[in-house]
């Protein structure tokens, strides 16, 4: 099992009721990890609007994840 730190921002913090999770998983990419995380919530966010990052870099949904990675799920920006 690999260990991941998961970060949620904005309204996604309310969806998962936390801003940070540490989980163990066998998932190998962000997409499958996200599907696994969805089993914890009832209010399913629109995946199309979410951006993802690994270790403080924007990446694609099919990006490979490694043990100890920090993975962030970001709703659409609303700054300015």
């Amino acid at each position, binding site marked *: 099992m690999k260990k991941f730190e998961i970060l949620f921002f904005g309204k996604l913090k309310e969806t998962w009721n936390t801003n940070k999770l540490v989980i163990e998983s066998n998932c190998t990419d962000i997409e499958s990890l996200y599907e696994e995380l969805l089993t914890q919530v009832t209010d399913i966010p629109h995946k199309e609007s979410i951006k993802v990052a690994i270790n403080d870099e924007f990446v694609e949904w099919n990006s490979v994840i490694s043990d100890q990675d920090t993975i962030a799920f*970001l709703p659409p920006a609303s700054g300015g």
Partner: protein
Amino acid sequence: MFRLSETTIDDSDLKTQTLNPSSGGFVCFEGWVRNNNQGKDVQKLAYEAYPKLAIKEGNKIIAEALEKFDIKKALCTHRVGLLTIGDMAVWVGVSAAHRDAAFKACRYILDEVKSRVPIWKNESWSDGESGWVEQEEDKN
């Protein structure tokens, strides 16, 4: 350079940093917290950021502007934390030899920061409720 600020934005200091002897033009945009949004009375708001990624993406946008437009210098600072009505939320300043590039670059930086930099707005309304603000339609 792109910065996040947890305290009041010092616009005069930012202007001083942006001006330079080779530029004949300076264009600035200041975004202020207003008391209404999407039909609701806004009391205050909080900006949350993903700081490391926000600074990286913000600096990438500044670098793009320097590449795309004939400008000399560009700076942008965005507030994070609690803000009240009338507080400055974002400052963008551009210096250039001539006005056209300065106007265009300032607009480019602001538009890209709003859509790409991971910052989120949580508003508190007069009815006692609060909530995360969705990305607004382009109000130009």
